[in-house]
């Protein structure tokens, strides 16, 4: 279980997070929605320790995320970045098995390659892709490779940052289905950040909406459409008018 308690973060005068309280139950898929600049990515990066919150506590299964062995803490996580964030200098299979080629989870090279090819197959890519470089792949293939990398070490917790951004609707649907399948079969705790309502409906068990640096609404996906919150209704229906200012 991931718990965020009163998280604050400001960049200069810009107060991005102003007291985020959120609980993500173990084995559940939480999707965080909200307009641009509402602090979704900052929240995710605070949990991973990529950004230090100014105030508040983050715990993962009761363990304070800011304390203890950082490497051991991060081995529990997998992350799919918005742009893939694949390493240009490495072939696809070494990107996927990056964690298995070094550090605490190190395996023999041949075994790491086998696992990489298996994970590539799991996300619908042929073994021939393994020896290509990221620059030789399309955007959709890069996302899949990023997804394969996120699940390569069978993490307990997986984060997805805008998984369908920049993809055509069909490829976005494929990625959404893959995420849902993988999260279900691995039994992982998942947290996804997205603007894409089709992703929300495909991936989420629970939804949280961030607005003005706080959690505006949270609840199960089944309650999203009937949520008694004007912000949520404006967001999910994409209305230009409402409590969320169109010009920010």
């Amino acid at each position, binding site marked *: 279980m991931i718990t965020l308690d009163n998280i604050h973060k400001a960049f200069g005068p810009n107060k991005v997070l102003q007291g985020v309280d959120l609980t993500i139950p173990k084995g559940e898929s939480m999707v965080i929605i909200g307009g641009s600049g509402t602090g979704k990515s900052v929240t995710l990066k605070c949990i991973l320790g990529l950004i230090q919150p100014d105030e508040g506590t983050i715990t993962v299964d009761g363990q304070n995320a800011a304390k203890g062995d950082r*490497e051991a803490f*991060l081995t529990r996580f997998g992350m799919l*970045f918005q742009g893939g*964030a*694949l390493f*240009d200098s490495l072939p696809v299979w070494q990107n996927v098995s990056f*964690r298995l080629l*070094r*550090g605490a989870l190190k395996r023999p090279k041949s075994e790491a390659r086998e696992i990489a090819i298996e994970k590539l197959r799991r996300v619908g890519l042929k073994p021939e892709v393994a020896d290509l470089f990221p620059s030789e792949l399309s955007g959709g293939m890069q996302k899949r490779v990023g997804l394969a990398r996120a699940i390569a070490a069978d993490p307990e917790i997986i984060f997805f940052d805008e998984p369908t951004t920049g993809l055509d609707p069909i490829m976005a649907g494929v990625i959404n289905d893959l995420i849902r399948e993988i999260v279900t079969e691995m039994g992982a705790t998942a947290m996804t950040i997205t603007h894409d309502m089709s992703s929300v409906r495909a991936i989420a068990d629970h939804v949280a909406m961030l607005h003005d640096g706080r959690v505006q609404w949270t609840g199960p996906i089944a309650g999203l459409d009937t949520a008694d919150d004007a912000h949520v209704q404006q967001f999910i229906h994409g209305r230009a008018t409402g409590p969320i200012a169109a010009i920010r």
Partner: protein
Amino acid sequence: MSLLAGFLAAIGRVVLGWLAATGRIALFTGETLLHMVRPPFYFREFGAAVLNVGYFSLPVVGLTAVFTGGALALQIYSGGARFNAEAVVPQIVAIGMVRELGPVLVGLMIAARVTSSIAAEIATMKVTEQIDALVTLSTHPMKYLTVPRVLAGLITVPVLVGIGDIIGIMGGYLVGVNRLGFNPASYLQNTVDFLELRDIISSLVKGAAFGVIATLMGCYFGMRSGRGAQGVGAATKSSVVAAAVLILAANFLLTQAFFFQ
């Protein structure tokens, strides 16, 4: 009065900015040194950095050295003729290349070729979240990106300087023998006789220092890059400028330390 205060405040801001940057670079250097002695060590990345910093810089170093050595021979011959000292060409080419031009030119070429590429590569990695990805994959970016490159600079640039010194002297030799009519055997003999061990050691030490400066500046400015293409461009430019200035400053200090104690 307010105009004067504003002027002084502007100077103060610049000075404070410089001091803060110096402090940040010192901390970055300290952190790099700390990670150099703490495992894990990434040997594959170190090997790749040795190839990039050292091996692939050989052509540019060789060309720079050979033309500089040749031009130096011509200049010394032409200038020496004013006071009947044309015969000192071999000695002055040797001392000029080994003590000064070899290390400085190699350092500046490394700043142009290697510092810029390191800064652009790491800055692009930062902009595209590859640095964040490294962290989430339990890999420290300083260990994975900075340490191998700085170690490669420390080890390979002195070798490049040594090679540059030899090629530069050979450039002077070719011009001296073929254009200025020197006897080949006596040219080489004069060169060897005139050089001291201290000259060679100073050259290699300067190479090591310049290698560290060039690679460290590339990593530092790459890691601190701003967003977007403009951020990458600014990081690359700043890294090369900082490396070149620091190499010239370090050259002065090392020359002072070696030859004017």
